[in-house]
């Protein structure tokens, strides 16, 4: 076992799959010699050559469009979108093309593409760098959307994503890239897509989160414990499809839930989870299911970030509101 940061675990996963499968290709802006702006692809071009790990021109739509073409020839492209807000330039290629190859060809073609991209707030990058756009992606049938919260999951989920036969959006929260290390096996392993992880067991309330908000939720749970509130914390790991079974099982036990997302409140993953809970477990609820989210504004400038982003105190407040309902 090795101690790895999340970025190291991601590089390790890419390296593992480049070794395992010669059809895997890694490319994007600055991913070659430079090793990526966050160093996610560091050393990969040197090890696997310029044919399999390469720089593209600065052209997001072209990068994803070309990935679709490559995938029709049996390749497994793993393109990088340098910051996830830049995916708007490639939205047609992602949602109009890659996501629909299987559907519109009646199953004759499919697009096993894994689009990796950094996103997320708290590192003083403003709008379009930090935006949480997973809700937009999750609304597109044909795509899967994966968001790891720790180095171990990042490696296992990324390997699973690359092996997946449908297009996967793999979102890497920038704040988690180097915030901590943990033990990650050096050998290959997978974490199944579509399976949530109960990070902390509890009996009084369920906190449902993903990405960086898993850590805020765990911190909130620790604080709540001091006040004898025993919170269960679920890390979704995949937001499309959502592991509704794990959520319902937990809510049936705790009878209360708070859904936490870093994204704005409107539409989104949290709203979808609230709906699932009320449809499947309303008679088990002791209180309305509450949400902790960012406000419905454009992702703000650096000085406003700490106030704008949801934090563990917001989670504690909502959890207490639920308990005291």
């Amino acid at each position, binding site marked *: 076992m090795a101690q790895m940061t999340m970025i190291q675990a991601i590089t390790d996963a890419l390296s593992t799959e480049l070794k395992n499968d010669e059809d895997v290709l890694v490319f994007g802006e600055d991913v070659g010699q430079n090793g990526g702006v966050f160093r996610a692809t560091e050393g990969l071009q040197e090890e696997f050559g310029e*044919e399999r790990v390469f720089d*593209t*021109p600065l*052209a997001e*739509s*072209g990068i*994803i*469009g*070309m*990935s*679709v*073409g*490559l*995938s*029709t*020839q*049996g*390749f497994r*492209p793993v393109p990088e979108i340098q910051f996830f807000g830049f995916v708007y330039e490639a939205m*047609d*290629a992602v949602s*109009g*093309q890659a996501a*629909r*190859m*299987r*559907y*519109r*060809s*009646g*199953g*004759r*073609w*499919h697009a096993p593409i894994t689009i990796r991209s950094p996103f997320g707030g708290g590192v003083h990058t403003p709008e379009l760098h930090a935006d949480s756009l997973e809700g937009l992606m999750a609304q597109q*049938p*044909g795509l*899967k959307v994966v968001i790891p919260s720790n180095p171990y999951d990042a490696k296992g989920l990324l390997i699973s994503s690359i092996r*997946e*036969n*449908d297009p996967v959006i793999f979102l890497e929260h920038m704040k988690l890239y180097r915030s901590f290390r943990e033990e990650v096996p050096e050998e290959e392993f997978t974490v199944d897509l579509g399976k949530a992880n109960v990070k902390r067991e509890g009996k009084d309330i369920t906190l449902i989160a993903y990405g960086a908000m898993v850590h805020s939720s765990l911190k909130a749970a620790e604080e709540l414990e001091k006040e004898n509130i025993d919170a269960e914390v679920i890390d979704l790991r995949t937001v499309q499809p959502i592991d509704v079974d794990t959520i319902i099982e937990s809510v049936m036990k705790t009878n209360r839930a708070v859904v936490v997302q870093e994204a704005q409140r409107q539409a989104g993953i949290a709203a979808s989870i609230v709906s699932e809970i009320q449809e499947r477990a309303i008679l088990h609820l002791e209180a309305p299911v509450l949400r902790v989210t960012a406000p419905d504004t454009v992702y703000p400038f650096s000085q406003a970030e700490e106030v704008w982003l949801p934090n563990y105190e917001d989670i504690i407040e909502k959890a207490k509101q639920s308990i005291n309902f």
Partner: protein
Amino acid sequence: MAKSRHQELGLTDEKVLDMYRTMLRARKIDERMWLLNRAGKIPFVISCQGQEAAQVGAAYALNLEEDYAAPYYRDMGVVLAFGMTTRDLFLSGFAKAEDPNSGGRQMPGHFGQKKNRILTGSSPVTTQLPHAVGVALAGKMEKKDFVSFVTLGEGSSNQGDFHEGLNFAGVHKLPVITMVENNKYAISVPLDRQVASETVADRGKSYGMPGYQVNGNDPLDVFAVIKEARERAVNGEGPTLVEAITNRLTAHSSDDDHTAYRDKEEIEEMKKNDCIMLFSEYLKEQGVLTDDAETAMMKEIDDEINDATEYAENAPYPEPTDALKYVYAEEGGE
């Protein structure tokens, strides 16, 4: 005796007759589609009429057993040359379950047929260009000899994907042949309101590839240029941009009335220069085709179209529940 133009190009009499037959099939299928549309039997038509010479001339210069095509919605001539059948096209027109393009899931003109190496296409224009570039990159990496042939209208050459795709192809010297079928209208918007450069072919220079303008009304001229482009591509000399000047003889689609933005004289003039008529005249001048042979050819095509229409009309629609299929891989499936 001096060689004829087609012989100079290495085309046998048999081959040019075959080209003519394919052009004629495209035209006749298209005309039938309009009739079916006006009779209320099929929902939509988007025509190839006037562009068959460019489409068929180009396709016959390719290796139809190995090359890939990423066509656009007018390319009935291209897909017929690549092996799509008349029946396949009517199944698409009627949106029946057996339609090999999409199983009736897309509009007519959204061609795609894996077994004939025709990439599935989408509705926003020019999205096929980066796909074709990806296919070419795959071919280059795997050291295969195929080329990737992609077509679009001149209006589509204004999309960002045109720039992004061709630039990448130019940087990596990929075996891509891009043919712009310039019919001078993007639905209703004329060329001088669409393209700032003098020609579309001029744009090739900025992508590091030659750009040729060719008379798209003459299949032999187009054949010559595409043949040369293919040789360049397989010799590792990189991509080529071809602008074929064509005419759109019909309205944009069955839902459009082009007399709203085109003069009667202009439409009449185009019809006098119909590429099918001109090629027929050429073949007759050369003694390759006779009136009798042409009549027999038309009869054969009409019979084929009648059979295909009847078959497609009677074929079952997809079940509504089929709409739930092929969104994600089946458990354990590819």
